[in-house]
């Protein structure tokens, strides 16, 4: 990787005694998208706010293009931020919201208006300039927030669970559109979320956070297939934790196939719940020794049926030590 545009080193955020973010290192290349994934309270939002300058760093430093920026107030940092509940200015129209950052930068009215129109068109809201923000639907407000954050041309867009408040249909659509808009403007992004589907869809790389630490970063497929620790595996949604002869391992949800009872080395389990998902089934089972498992199976076994499962060793996650 070329020299990263954004570097965070040993970042720490404290709220009184609580260390919300501990010794986080993070790199972001120009135009790259990083998804920070973690359960609520893991410190991912605090890290994002510290990068934006809204929380002070208790320790550590932040560099943009090699220059330290940790001492700058938020308004002098080259970042845009999209808030969880949009934080649109209720007393201003859509157009006035979008042009706010441009006005702060001292851009003249004529180019300002042009830029606002351009951005609204980019997010699919052409002609919305004079609408009151209080009349917008959730999805529209989301797009206005995106246009507003992008208008001043930030080097990095920081997104704090911006899709959390939307219904599923709308979310799926925006997950598809967001990367297109970011690519069109060439903006790098850090996207904070607790939803692994969202993280995998939006990040070129995924960073897994838990307990204030950034445990692992890498391409989504790699991180999912090879979590470095049980903690990371759990955050990624892995539930089949098995205490086997070679220590604790995790069976991926795609590791099992139903086989005949006479095959060797199978796991015997009773089907407890079957969830039809279209192409496949999300199946919950209980082994004879009382362990709960969850697999994705192509064919649905009957409820209460006793099945024999073969576990593919290539799809078993083992941890280093």
């Amino acid at each position, binding site marked *: 990787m070329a020299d990263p545009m954004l570097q965070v080193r040993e970042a720490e955020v404290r709220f009184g005694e609580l260390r919300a973010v501990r010794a986080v290192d993070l790199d972001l290349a120009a135009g790259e998208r990083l998804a920070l994934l973690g359960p609520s309270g893991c410190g991912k939002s605090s890290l994002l706010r510290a990068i934006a*300058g809204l929380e002070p760093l208790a320790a550590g430093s932040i560099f943009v293009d090699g220059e330290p920026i940790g001492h700058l107030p938020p308004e002098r*940092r080259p970042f845009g931020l999209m*808030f969880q509940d949009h934080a649109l200015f209720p007393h201003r129209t859509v157009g006035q919201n979008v042009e*706010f950052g441009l006005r*702060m930068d001292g851009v003249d009215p004529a180019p300002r208006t042009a830029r606002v129109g351009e951005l609204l068109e980019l997010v699919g809201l052409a002609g919305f300039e004079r609408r009151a923000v209080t009349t917008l639907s959730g999805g529209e407000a989301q797009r206005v927030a995106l246009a507003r*954050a992008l208008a*001043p041309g930030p080097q990095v867009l920081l997104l704090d669970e911006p899709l959390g408040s939307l219904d599923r249909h709308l979310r799926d659509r925006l997950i598809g559109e967001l990367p297109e808009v970011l690519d069109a403007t060439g903006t790098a992004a850090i996207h904070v979320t607790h939803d692994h589907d969202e993280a995998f869809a939006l990040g070129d790389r995924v960073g897994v956070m838990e307990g204030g630490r950034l445990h692992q970063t890498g391409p989504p497929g790699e991180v999912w297939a090879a979590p470095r620790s049980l903690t990371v595996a759990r955050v990624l949604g892995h539930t089949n934790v098995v205490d086997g002869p070679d220590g604790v391992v995790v069976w991926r949800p795609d590791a099992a196939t139903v086989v005949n009872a006479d095959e060797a080395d199978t796991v015997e389990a009773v089907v407890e719940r079957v969830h039809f998902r279209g192409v496949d089934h999300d199946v919950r089972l209980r082994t004879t020794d009382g362990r709960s498992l969850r697999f994705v199976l192509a064919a649905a076994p009957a409820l209460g049926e006793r099945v024999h499962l073969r576990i593919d060793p290539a799809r078993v996650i083992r941890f280093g030590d």
Partner: protein
Amino acid sequence: MNQRARIGRRAIGGAVLVVVPAVFIAVFFGYPIATVLWRGLGGGGGETFLDLAESSRQRDIVWFTLWQAVASTALTLVVGLPAASIVARLPPRRQRLVRALVTVPFVLPTVLVAGAFTEVFAVTGLDEGALRLRHTVWAILIAHVFFNYAVVVRTVGAFWSGLDHRMEEAARSLGATAWAAFREVTLPRLRPAIASAAAIVFLFSFTSFGVVLILGGPRRATLETEIYRQAVTRTDLETAAALAVVQLVAVLALVVVSTRLERRRPIVGRGARLSRRAASPVWRWVNLGIGFVLLGGPIGVLMERSFSTGDGYGFDHYRALAERAPQLPAPATTALANSIVFAVTATAMAVLVGLLASLVVVHGRRGLARVFDLGLTLPLGTSAVTIGFGMLIALDEPPLDLRTSWWIIPIAHALVGVPFVVRTMVPVLRAIDPALHEAAGVLGASPARARREIDLPIGLRGLVVGAGFAFAVSLGEFGATSFLPRRPENLTAPVALFRLLSTPGDLLRGQAMALAVVLMVLVAAAVLVIESARGSDEGVF
């Protein structure tokens, strides 16, 4: 711009924010009050605070001040709470209408109301005989209910309509009668609103001046009227100062207790208001009737009297306002014009000081914010008489010899108006989502710029409400003004009204009533502005 210049400018902006209100309050409130304390505690020689305790007359005055305030508060709650229960169940639009209507009496000049009640007693024959109300405690109590009805209806009514109605429904479904559900479920949740309304009513009754002076007659004295009598009629400044100290201590104790009570107020979630059953018609009409007679009666009589010419109706009394009565240094119309100019000037000052102070209260460092919050509430609690008296005795030497200056009146009025501006602005500013400031910051606005871009436009509505109150208060201000020098160019409408009313005989009565009506129309206009600018749920007063 380089960073140092930016920081420099920000520091200057912050300093202006703090210094302007701080200096205003310190010079025109703190210093006069400190002077009163110094003189009252014996700093000027002569009779002191301690000597007062030995005088039985003064002890009686303290006792009367206290018990009439308690009685006024109790009576206002008895009359106002049922009305609040009805207002709480009205649809929002009608709720606003009722709130606007009851607010007019609340901001009416005290002298005007006292005059109206005197007239009511005369018309109904209650000024003499066995049922005499004139110059009795009852006259004072009824007038206090008239004023403070709005406090109870607004504070408790708004709070009540915000309560989650499903809790009463749950109680009813568990077998409680309507009364039991009210007693067990509604009343305990209303307690904080009732307590804060009661505290305000008590404070206003305790420091009531014009009403007691006019309706109580020569023999009824409270601390307020006694300070006035000692200072203005007997020119015994030391005794007046000693009384003012007693007054200050009592009010301070009250403010401390009531803020304690308010801090205990639980956070109440906005409830779902799915089912809102209307009150029973009988209950509704009885209360409507009481409110109508209580608030509408005196106002109606006032209007009728102002047009009555003895042998019919006409505008004679209104025409007479333009001519100078022998009791006044200038015609009543001049007094009205003076009052409007004073009110505009005082409102401008109150808005400036109040706005800056509100920003400090909301955004300042915690210690500073606390000091400002308390320092700006004190003038509201301190009686107007004490403020006027303090200015009279403190601002009499260069470089602050303002006693003969025209400016002393708008300054005194602004002082009374500032707390109203602060009290309406602070909740509006506090309700602004901090994420908006952060969003502005990330988009490149400095903290000062963010305040200008967000707080100012959003707070504007609150500012209009505060300005309306400041304007109405200034128009009707009597307590403080009555201490300040009497010169033709300083004559205000309430002072002119007081002089006309205290003239024996019927000759000037009609003219007084006409002046009162004009004053009332002006105040009602200010209330209209307040109510149209106010959102549906804000309401501190």
